Each structure stands twice: as C-alpha cells, then as structure tokens.
C-alpha cells in the first residue's frame, strides 16, 4: 500500500507536467499544426455537450460490443480446447502464429469482398482482431495449469468433468481475464480502424471531416476520448478480476 501511495503523486505530477509542456510547446505554433491541450479539452467539452460525440460514440460501440461478444463466445472455448490437448496445440501452434503475423488491417480488402463496407464488415474486423488475441492467451493459460494441482485432484478421485470444473477452469481464469483485457483493447482499436478503413461512419467519419478541415484540436480530442475508453475498459476489467478472482494474486 505504502508503495503505491509513494509513487502516486509522482505519476500525477508527471501527467500535469506533460500537459503543461504540451501547452507551452503548442503555444508558438498555429492550431493547424499542433493544438494545445486547452484547445483539445475545450473541443472535447463542446462536442460532448452538443451531442455530436456521444451519438458517434454510441454508434461505434454497437459494432464494438457485438464483435467483441462474438469473439469471446467463440475464442474462449476454442482456446481451452486447443490448450488442454498437447497434440492439438502442437498442430494449431504454427498456423496460429502465421495468421497472427498478418496485420489485421491487411484483411480489410477481404472483409469488403465478403461483408461489404458497412456494419457487418465492421463487426467482422472487431471480431477478427479480438479473436486471435483471445485464443492465443486462453490457449497459453489452459496449457499452463500447474500439473501438481491436477495430480492432487486425481489422487482425491475427481472425475474428468469435476477436474475441468474445479481445477482447470479456476486455474486458468486469470488468463481468461488477461485475454479479455487484451482482447477488449484490441477490439477498441479495431472499432476505430474499421471506421477509418471501411465506409467512414461515426467517430471515423468525424475524424475524416476534421482532417479535411485541418482541425487538429478535434482530431486530438477524439484520440483522447478513445484513449480514455481504452483505459476505462482495461481498468474496469482489472477491478472485476480482483473482485471475482480473489485467489489469484496479481503481480503488480
């Protein structure tokens, strides 16, 4: 506790200092080239109040939520299945790392061919980007269940089903949470990527308009919003994890 307390003022100071530096640095140049944080925050406040930004954000969240939910539903069981069998894992591993090496944006032309330019294609991109991240992490988690725990279960005569429910699942849940966290951040990336690379809508459309008007403050305000969204998602899942998985001591 003391440790975190000791470092918190420094972190806070660093943030303040960074924003002050940014403000000073942006003072000398025109707003077209680089906007100061005061202008960005003012822009963010204005767009939030006028309802432009909340409307766009809600539109964006639609494909984020659907794509991410689909990815979780498919990827978590799949990751378990792969991870619990050494043979399947050895077979899937090279294929997975090969697909993982392809940048997801490069699949956008495919998504256009298969799903068009609109909602379905955006959901598909979110799904793809979150899916692989989740499968890889859950697979690793299921593979790394402590064999000693399994042995104890077996010596006490636990059946296969009981072993899965009582040992494997709880032991790999921390990895599932890591997977969800990483997957959700990726999904948010995919959400804005889809809006910029497929038909421009919602936040993506706003960004494109602002880029055409050289509205740097507007662009930065959307990036700031997305960054906050990512932080909230990540910290929210972390808090949920500590609440739900008290047996798992997280390394800070």
């Amino acid at each position, binding site marked *: 506790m003391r440790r975190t307390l000791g470092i918190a003022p420094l*972190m806070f100071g660093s943030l303040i200092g960074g924003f002050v530096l940014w403000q000073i640095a942006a003072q000398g140049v025109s707003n077209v080239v680089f906007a100061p944080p005061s202008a960005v925050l003012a822009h963010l406040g204005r767009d939030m109040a006028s309802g432009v930004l909340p409307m766009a954000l809600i539109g964006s969240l639609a494909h984020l939520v659907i794509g991410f939910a689909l990815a979780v539903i498919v990827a978590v069981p799949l990751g378990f299945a792969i991870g619990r069998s050494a043979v399947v894992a050895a077979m899937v591993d090279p294929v997975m790392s090969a697909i993982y090496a392809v940048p997801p944006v490069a699949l956008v032309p495919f998504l256009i061919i298969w799903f068009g330019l609109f909602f379905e294609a955006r959901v598909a991109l979110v799904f793809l980007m979150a899916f692989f991240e989740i499968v890889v992490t859950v697979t690793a988690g299921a593979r790394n269940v402590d064999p000693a725990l399994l042995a104890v279960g077996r010596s006490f005569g636990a059946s296969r089903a009981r072993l899965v429910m009582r040992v494997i699942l709880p032991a790999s849940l921390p990895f599932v949470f890591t997977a969800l966290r990483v997957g959700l951040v990726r999904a948010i990336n995919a959400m804005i990527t889809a809006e910029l690379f497929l038909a421009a809508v919602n936040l993506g459309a706003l960004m494109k308009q602002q880029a055409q008007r050289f509205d740097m403050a507007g662009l930065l305000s959307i990036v700031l919003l997305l960054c906050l969204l990512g932080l909230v998602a990540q910290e929210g899942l972390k808090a949920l994890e500590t609440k739900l998985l008290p047996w798992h001591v997280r390394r800070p």
Partner: protein
Amino acid sequence: MKRLGYNILGIILALALWELIGRAVGAELFAPPSVVLPEFVALVRQGQIIVELAASLRQMIVGFALACMIGVTVGIAMGRSRICDGLFHPWLSMFVVTSVAALVPIFVLLFGTGFWFRVAIVFVASVWYVMLTVYHGARGVEPRFIDVGHSFGAGPLRSFRSILLPALYPYIMTALRIGLIHAIRAMVVAEMFVILGYGGMIYRAGYQPSTAPLLALLMTLMLVSVGVNEMLRLAGRKLAPWYDEQMGLTKIRLS
C-alpha cells in the same frame, strides 16, 4: 521431434482445409493455395513486390530501431528506479491502449505522407510495447543476483553490465519480437491509409477480380514476419540459453 511432426501435420491440414474452402467458394471470394502459389511465383518473378516490400521495410526498420533504443533504455530505467517509473508509467499506460489507426490522420497532417510519417507511426506503435516488456523484466531481476555482485565488490557500472543486462537479454529479445509485430502492423496501417508502398499494393489488390494476388501479398508479408520473428527467437536462445524456459509464461502476461 514428435512435436515437430505434429507442427508439420497441422500446417498440412490447414493448407488442405484452405484448398477445400477455396475450391468451394471460388477464387473471387477466397483463392485456394493451388491458385495463390502460381500467382505468388509470378509476382516475385515480376519483381515489383520485392522492391516495394524492401522499401517499406527499410522505413519500418528506421522507426523500429528508434523505438527499440528508446524503449529498452526507458524500460530499464523504469524498472530499476521508482522515480522513472512514476514519471513514465502514466504515459506508458495511456499510449499503450491508444489505437494506432486513430493516430494516422493526425500524423498525416503533421508529417505528410513521406518517409518521416511512416517512421513516426511505426515508432509510436512499437515503442510502448518494447518499453513495457523490458520494464517488467527489469523489475523482476532476482535481487540476490545484484546482492552477490555487491558482495564481490561490483560497482554500479559493472553490476549493470555483468548482471542486470544479461538477466534482461531474454526480455529484450521478447520485447523486440512483440515490438516487431506491432511495427509491421503499423507499417501496413499507415501505408494502406495513404495508399503507398506495400500497404498500398495490398489495398489496390482488393479491387482485383481474383483474391489470388491479395493472398499472395499477405503470404509474403506473413513469411517475412514469421522469418524475422524466428531469427529473433534463435538470437534470444543463443544470447541466453535459458530463454525458452523463462519466457514461456512471461510472454502471455505481457502481451
């Protein structure tokens, strides 16, 4: 050895599955490997693909090298000094969740679409991952190792060079591997947005009637990425023979 057999079996099965699906839906939707392979050979023979890829990779390497230098340095500093940790951590947490695609329009305004634009995008996309990985490594260095150094009279410089740095080799190699994947992703994002270079080729390939050229481009990119990644893994093993053992779990915790 048995594992290698399963690896190869998995690749063969995946290719067979791809062939089956490809045949079923047709080359307009998803070209099978039997169509992609000749296309790939033709593209390589023609040579433009190699020229574009080499040019794109050259720009990526500049950004990635900068990211590695700064990421490793700051990562070590953060891991070993509470003050540096406090100073840099909030920014690290913020930037690591920031979407690269969202930064692209801003960087176009700032840098245009040339060399520095791509270098800058690759840099911001990979530096935070390198930093984070090295940071975790530097924090976790066994204190006993350092203590032993102290007892034998090693000064701070000696301790850094002979104890801390070797202990960090596996993490640095892993950081480079994670960073590289993000660097390649960022390169493609940036180039597809401005339709230039290799990413631009991928974008334009999407408008062709057959998906074979598109898949050939993606396969090439995949081979390069996997190849460099394996080279880094080998280098990691060479530099630190305990590499695989140590990185098994760490990779997941960090990703």
